[in-house]
C-alpha cells in the first residue's frame, strides 16, 4: 500500500512536469501548427543559464526569473531566425529544423558545461511531507511543481479566452489571412506564441532539473513524455495537456515502480500507441471535420 501510494504521488509530480512541457508543445502547435522537438532542449539551455547564475552566488528566485525571461527571448529568436523563413513551405521543414536545433543546443550545453550530470537545487525542501506518523514521497517542492503548472495552465487559458492579445493569437492561428485583413500582426502573434511556449519550457526545465539527473540530455526523456502527454490531450487543449501529463506521469511511475525503471519509455510508448488506436484525436480533442 505504501509503495502504491508513493508511486502514485511520484507520478503526480512527474506528470506535472510533463504537463508543463506538453503546454509548451500545445502553444507552438496552436500558433504555427508544428511539433517543436527543441522544446525540451530550449528548457535545458535556460536551466543551465539559471545554474550558472546560482553558481555565481545569485539567489534562487532571481535566477528563476532570469531563466524564464531567457526562455521568452530564446523562443522568440528561434521563431524569427529559423521558423519564419520556412513559413508556407512544407510543414516538415520547420519540424526538421527543430530536431537539428535539439542536437545543436545539446552540443553547445555539453561543450560548455560538460557531460556529467550534476545536482540542481530545488525551490523548496525535497523532504517528504509527514501525514500523521508516516512520511510520504511528496515534498514541499512537489507541491510547488503542482501549483506552478496549474497556474501556468490557468494563465494560458485566461490569456487565450479573455485578453485581446489572446484573441489575436487565436485568430492568427485559426485563419491567418482573415486575421491579417482585420489588422492582426500575424507574424508577431506567431513569435509571441513561440516565446510563451519557450517560457513554459523554461519553467519545465527548472522544475524537472532537481528530480532528474541534470545534464545536457536530461530533457530528452522529459520531452518524449511531454509529447506523449500532449498527444493524449489532443495537442491543442491546455486542459488536455495537463490531464495527459498526469496520465503519462502515473503510467510511467507505476511501470517504473513495479516493473523496473528501464521499462518506463516502453510504458509510455504502449500508452501512446493504445491511445492513438482508440482515440486518435486524443482524449480531449474532438474529431476535426476537414473541408475538401
Amino acid at each position: 500500500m505504501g509503495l502504491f501510494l508513493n508511486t502514485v504521488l511520484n507520478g503526480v509530480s512527474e506528470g506535472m512536469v510533463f504537463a508543463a512541457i506538453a503546454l509548451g508543445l500545445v502553444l507552438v502547435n496552436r500558433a504555427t501548427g508544428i511539433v517543436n522537438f527543441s522544446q525540451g532542449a530550449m528548457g535545458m539551455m535556460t536551466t543551465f543559464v539559471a545554474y550558472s547564475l546560482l553558481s555565481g552566488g545569485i539567489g534562487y528566485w532571481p535566477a528563476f526569473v532570469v531563466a524564464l525571461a531567457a526562455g521568452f527571448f530564446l523562443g522568440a529568436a528561434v521563431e524569427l531566425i529559423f521558423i519564419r523563413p520556412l513559413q508556407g513551405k512544407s510543414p516538415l521543414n520547420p519540424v526538421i529544423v527543430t530536431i537539428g536545433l535539439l542536437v545543436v543546443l545539446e552540443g553547445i550545453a555539453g561543450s560548455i558545461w560538460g557531460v556529467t550530470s550534476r545536482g540542481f537545487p530545488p525551490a523548496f525542501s525535497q523532504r517528504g511531507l509527514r501525514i500523521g506518523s508516516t512520511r510520504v514521497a511528496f515534498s514541499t517542492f512537489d507541491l510547488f511543481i503542482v501549483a506552478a503548472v496549474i497556474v501556468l495552465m490557468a494563465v494560458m487559458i485566461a490569456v487565450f479566452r479573455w485578453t485581446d492579445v489572446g484573441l489575436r493569437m487565436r485568430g492568427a492561428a485559426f485563419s491567418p489571412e482573415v486575421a491579417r485583413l482585420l489588422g492582426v500582426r500575424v507574424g508577431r502573434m506567431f513569435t509571441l506564441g513561440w516565446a510563451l511556449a519557450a517560457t513554459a519550457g523554461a519553467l519545465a526545465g527548472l522544475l524537472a532539473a532537481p528530480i532528474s539527473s541534470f545534464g545536457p540530455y536530461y530533457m530528452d526523456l522529459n520531452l518524449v513524455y511531454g509529447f506523449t502527454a500532449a498527444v493524449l490531450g489532443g495537442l491543442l487543449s491546455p486542459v488536455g495537456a495537463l490531464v495527459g501529463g498526469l496520465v503519462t506521469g502515473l503510467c510511467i511511475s507505476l511501470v517504473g515502480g513495479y516493473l523496473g525503471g528501464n521499462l518506463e519509455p516502453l510504458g509510455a510508448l504502449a500508452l501512446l500507441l493504445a491511445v492513438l488506436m482508440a482515440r486518435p484525436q486524443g482524449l480531449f480533442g474532438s474529431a476535426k471535420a476537414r473541408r475538401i
Partner: protein
Amino acid sequence: MTRAPSPVPVAESAIRPDGDRRDGGHLLRLPEQPLLRHLVLMVFGAGLLYLLTQSLSAYNNFQVGEIGAFAIALAGLSVLTGQNGQISLGHGALMAIGAYTVALLMVHTHLNLVVELAIATLVTTAVGVVVGVPAARLGGAYLAGVTLLLALTVPLLAAQYGSIFGGEQGLTTTPPSAPGTINPERWLAWIQLAAALVVMVLLGNLVRSRFGRAFRAVRDDDVAASLAGIHVTRTKVLAFSVSAGCAGLGGALLVLSTGVVNTGEFPLTLSIELLAGMVIGGAGTLVGAWWGAIALVYVPQWSTSLSSRLSLGTTVAAYLADALFGAALIVVILAAPSGIQGSLRRLAHGIAAATTGRASPPNPPAALARLLRSADVPGGTRSSSDASTRSRDRSPDQVATKE
C-alpha cells in the same frame, strides 16, 4: 487553418517520372522500362564498386562496406520522408532491432547468412507495422514523436533484458568467413554493397510503381489522395514498414562490420544523424542516400581529427560530430532543402541548358506551385507585398492610373 500548398521543397527533389529521361537522353539511352533501367544501373554500379573495392586497402574496404549498410537505412528513410512526407526519429532504434536480431541468430543458430539477414529485415518490418499503424493516424510530423519514443525505448529494453541481449557488453558475432583467398574485409564489403544495390533496385521500382505514386499523392494532399481511391492509412503504414525493414537490414549488415552489438551502439543521436544524412544527401532520392551514407561514415572521423588538430577539450570533441550534423540539418533545410543530390541535379540542368544554348525547360507544375505559394503564404506579410510588386511589374499602366 488553410493547408500550405504543396509540392513541398523537400519533395521537389523527389524522383520525377520524367526527370531521368530529360538529362540522361543524349549521353546514354537507358531502357524506358523501370525494372530494366534499374537493373542496367545496378550492373553498372556493381562494376564500379568492384573496381573500387579491388583498389582500396583493407581498412578503406571496411568503411566502404559500412557506407553500403548506411545507404540501405538512409534509402529507406529517404523514401519515407521524401516520397511519403513522414519523419522518423527512430531509424537508429530500428537499425538496433535488425542488429540484435541478426546477432541473436548468429549466436544461437547456424543459418545461412542470407536467411539471417532476411529474418532481421522481416522482424524490423513487423515492428514498423506495429508502430506505424497507430502513428499513421496522426500527421506526418507526429510519426517523429512516436519514433523518438521508440529510439529511447530500444536501448533501455536491451539493458533491461541483459541475459538475452548481453547488456552493456552486448553480443559478439563472428564475421562471415570469406571463401578462398579473398581478403575478409573485401568479402564483407561485397556482401554489404551487393545488398545495398539489390535494395536500391527494389526501392527504385517501388517508387516508380503505383505504390510510389500513392506515397507521393498522400504526401502532397491526403484528402485528395483518399478521394482518388487511395487508402491513406495503408499507404502510410506501407511506407513506414518498408522504410523500417531497410533500417533493420542496414543495422544487421552493420553488425557484420562492427562484430558486436551493445546498448551504446545505437543511441538517439544515431537516429538524428540518419535524418541529417538523409536531408544532406537529398530527401526522396536514392542516390542522395549514398551521399548521406558517406557523410555518416566520414564526418565523425573528420570531426575527431579536426578537434584533435584544434586541440579542443575532450568534452567539445565528444559533441562536435553531433553538433555538426544538427547544424547541417538546419543549414541545409534553410539554404538548400533538396540536399546534395537536388543541387547537383539543378547544376546538371544548368550546364545542359548552357551547352545546348537554350533555356532550361520550364517546370510548369513547380512554377505554378511557387506562384500559388507566394499568393497564399500563411503568416507572411511579405507575401502580399510580393504579390503587389509583381502585379505592378506586369501592368505599370494600371498602377499609374491608380496613383
